[in-house]
C-alpha cells in the first residue's frame, strides 16, 4: 500500500480534497489539465452572496495545498487497476501507483453559441456570464460599451433546455445573474437592467435578500419570459424579443449589452474518463454516484470517489463541503485496506 491518492482536477473541489487528505496523513497527487489551479472559480471576479473576491478563495486553497504533488498541464494517459491499487501513467510521462482516486473534474460552461438565436459570437454586444466576470477582472472587452443605456440578462442559457441537451437546472445562474446585474448597475447607475427569467430559483440563504436588493435598491427589472430571438439593429444594438408572460404580451427591447447566463453542463471528458476506470455516468453526462442521497461522493467502484460539480451543478460551499466529505470517505476506505 502506497498511501497515494490521485485527485483528478485542480479546481476548488480537487484542491480542498487534497488539502484534507494531506491533513489526514495520506499523500494526494493533483492532476490538472490546464496550466493553473482553481478551475472556473479562478476566472470569476467575486462570489455571491457576499461579493467576496474569488481570487482570495483560490489563493487560500492553493496556499494550503503547498507541499502537495501537483501536475499541471497534465492529463491521465492510461490507468490500470491491479490488485487493489491503480497504476496511472500521466501525459507528462510520469507514472505512479495509488490506492484511491478522487474525481473532481468539475463542469463545462455551456457553449452559448449553441443557442444560435441569441447570436453569441455573431452580434457585437452579446457576451456570457464568464465574459462579464473576465471583464470585471480585466476591464477590457470591446463588446462591453462604455456608457450603456440598457442591459439585458438572459437566464437559463443552455439550462433546463431539452433542445440544448441539458435538462438540469444549473442552480447558480439565477443568483449569479442577480449578482452581476447589481455589479453592472453599480458601474452604470443610469442603465436600465432587465433580467429575463423562466423561474427564479433563488434557493440559498441570503439569496432572496439579494433579489430584493436588486429589485428595490437597484431598480433592476425582472421580466418573466424567455428570450426567443435576438437580432441586431442598424446602430449595432441588440434587439431582443421575448414574451412578458405575466402580462401575456410579446415584448421588444433594444439593449446595449446582452449577457447570456451560460449554464453548468457536464465536463465533456467525463465519458472517456468514466470508461477508462469503469465508473458510470448518467444520461446528462455527470458521474453517477452510488446513491444520490446518502453516498453522493462515492462511485460504484471501490476506491473511486467524486467531489464537486462532476456529479451535478453545485454552489461553492456545497462543492467545498463535498470535497471534505470525499476526503473522509477516502480516509475510511484507505484505513479499511490496511
Amino acid at each position, binding site marked *: 500500500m502506497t498511501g497515494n491518492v490521485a485527485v483528478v482536477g485542480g479546481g476548488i473541489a480537487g484542491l480542498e480534497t487534497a488539502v484534507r487528505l494531506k491533513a489526514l496523513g495520506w499523500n494526494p497527487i493533483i492532476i490538472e489539465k490546464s496550466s493553473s489551479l482553481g478551475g472556473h472559480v479562478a476566472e470569476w471576479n467575486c462570489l455571491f452572496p457576499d461579493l467576496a473576491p474569488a481570487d482570495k478563495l483560490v489563493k487560500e486553497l492553493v496556499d494550503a495545498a503547498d507541499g502537495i504533488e501537483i501536475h499541471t498541464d497534465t492529463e491521465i494517459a492510461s490507468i490500470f487497476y491491479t490488485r487493489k491499487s491503480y497504476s496511472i501513467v500521466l501525459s507528462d510521462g510520469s507514472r505512479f501507483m495509488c490506492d484511491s482516486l478522487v474525481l473532481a473534474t468539475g463542469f463545462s460552461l455551456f457553449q452559448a*453559441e449553441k443557442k*444560435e*438565436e441569441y*447570436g*453569441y*459570437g*455573431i*452580434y*457585437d454586444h452579446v457576451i456570457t456570464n464568464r465574459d462579464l466576470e473576465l471583464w470585471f477582472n480585466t476591464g477590457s472587452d470591446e463588446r462591453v460599451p462604455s456608457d450603456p443605456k440598457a442591459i439585458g440578462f438572459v437566464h437559463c442559457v443552455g439550462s433546463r433546455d431539452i433542445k440544448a441537451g441539458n435538462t438540469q437546472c444549473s442552480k447558480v445562474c439565477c443568483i449569479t445573474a442577480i449578482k452581476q446585474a447589481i455589479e453592472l448597475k453599480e458601474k452604470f447607475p443610469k442603465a436600465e437592467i432587465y433580467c429575463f427569467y423562466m423561474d427564479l430559483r433563488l434557493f440559498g440563504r441570503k439569496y432572496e435578500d439579494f433579489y430584493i436588493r436588486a429589485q428595490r435598491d437597484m431598480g433592476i427589472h425582472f421580466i418573466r419570459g424567455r428570450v426567443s*430571438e435576438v*437580432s*441586431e*439593429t*442598424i446602430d*449595432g444594438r441588440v*434587439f431582443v424579443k421575448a414574451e412578458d408572460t405575466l402580462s401575456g404580451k410579446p415584448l421588444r427591447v433594444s439593449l446595449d449589452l446582452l449577457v447570456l447566463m451560460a449554464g453548468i453542463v457536464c465536463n465533456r471528458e467525463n465519458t472517456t474518463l468514466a470508461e477508462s476506470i469503469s465508473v458510470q455516468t448518467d444520461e446528462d453526462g455527470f458521474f453517477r454516484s452510488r446513491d444520490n442521497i446518502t453516498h453522493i461522493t462515492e462511485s460504484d467502484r471501490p476506491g473511486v470517489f467524486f467531489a464537486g460539480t462532476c456529479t451535478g451543478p453545485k454552489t461553492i460551499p456545497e462543492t467545498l463541503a463535498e470535497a471534505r466529505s470525499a476526503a473522509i470517505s477516502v480516509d475510511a476506505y484507505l484505513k479499511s485496506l490496511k
Partner: protein
Amino acid sequence: MIYQGKQKIWSEYQKEIPDDHWFYVRSCIRQSFFPGAEKHFLKITRDLLGKDIYETEHHTTCGGIAYHCDTIPQETAMTIVARQFALMTEAGYENLVASCITSFGNYCETIETWREFPELEARIREHLWKACRREFKVPKYVAHASDLIYKFRGEIAEKAKFHLVNKATGEPLRIVEHIGCHYSKMFPHKGVGGAEYPCVLSGMAEAWGGEVIDYPERRHCCGFGFRQYLVRANRGYSMSNTHKKFESMEPYHPDVIITNCPGCPFFLDRWQYVISETEGKTYGQNGYGIPVLTYEELAGLVLGYDPWDLGLQMHQVAVEPLLDKMGVPYEPSKKYLGLDEKEIMKPGLPTVLKCC
C-alpha cells in the same frame, strides 16, 4: 455583426446536395404569380449547367396548402406526398427537388415522421396502393430548388453578365434575403446554413456581388401564413406582419429583396402596394417600392436574360430602378408585350406607389 461567427454556423449546416439527376416538382402557385421563375430554373440548370432535371405532367399538389390550412388530415397529405415519390421512383430518380418551400417542408416532414413512426409509413404505402396501385421509394435526397442554385452559384457567377453592384457607384447592392418559413425552421439541418442564419440566398447574393443586410425582423414570416391571408377577415393581420418586416428593413435602404418561397415574394411585393394605398407609405427610393425577386429571376438577371422574358413585368413593384442600378438593358416599350409581340394588357397605376 461578426461575420466569422456566421461562417462558423454555416459550416455546421452544410447539407449534401447531389450534383445531378433530379426529379423536379413544381409549385402550385408560382406559375401564376411569377411565371418566369420555374421556367428559368429549368433553363439555367438544364441548358446552362447541363444537368438532368426530370419533370412529369402527372405530378399534383403536394397537399401542403390544404395541410397547413387544416383542411385535410395528415394521412391524406402524406398519401399525396407518397404519390409524388412513386412518380419519382417510376421515373427512376432518387433525388427530389421541389420548387416550393412548403412542398420541400412537407416532404421533409413526411420523411422525418416516417423515420420516427415506421408503422405510419407502412400505412401510407397501403393507402397509396389502395388508391392508385403505386409503390414508392423514399427519396435519397430532397432539396429545394434554391439549394441547387446555391450549389451552382459559383458557376453562375463565372458566367455572369451583370453583378449585384450599383454600376454608377461601384457599391455592392444592399440585398435583403427572405427565406420561406418551411425551409429550415422545422428542420434546421435540412436547410443550407440552418434556421437562424440560413445562407442559401445570402450565399447567392454574395457570390454575385451583393451585400446582404441583416435587419432585426429578418426571421419574421412574410405574413402569408396560409389562413391568415386566405380568410379575408385575417388579411389585416397578414399585412401587419409584412408591414413589420418593411418597417424593420427600411433604415437599411435595401435595393432588392430576394426570396425562395412561392408565397413570400408575392406578399412582400403586393402588400407594398396595399400598404401604400392604405398608409400612404412606400419603402423604396423616390416613391418606388423595394423590388422583390425570386432567386431564379435574380440569377436570370445576373446571367443577362431579358427582364421581360424573366416575367419581371408581373411584379407589382417596379423593377426598373434595380435594372438601372445593375445596368441591365431593357426596352420599356416591350414591358407589356407577350412572346407573340402582342399587348398583354397594361395594369392600372397605383395612386401612391410609383411604378413605371
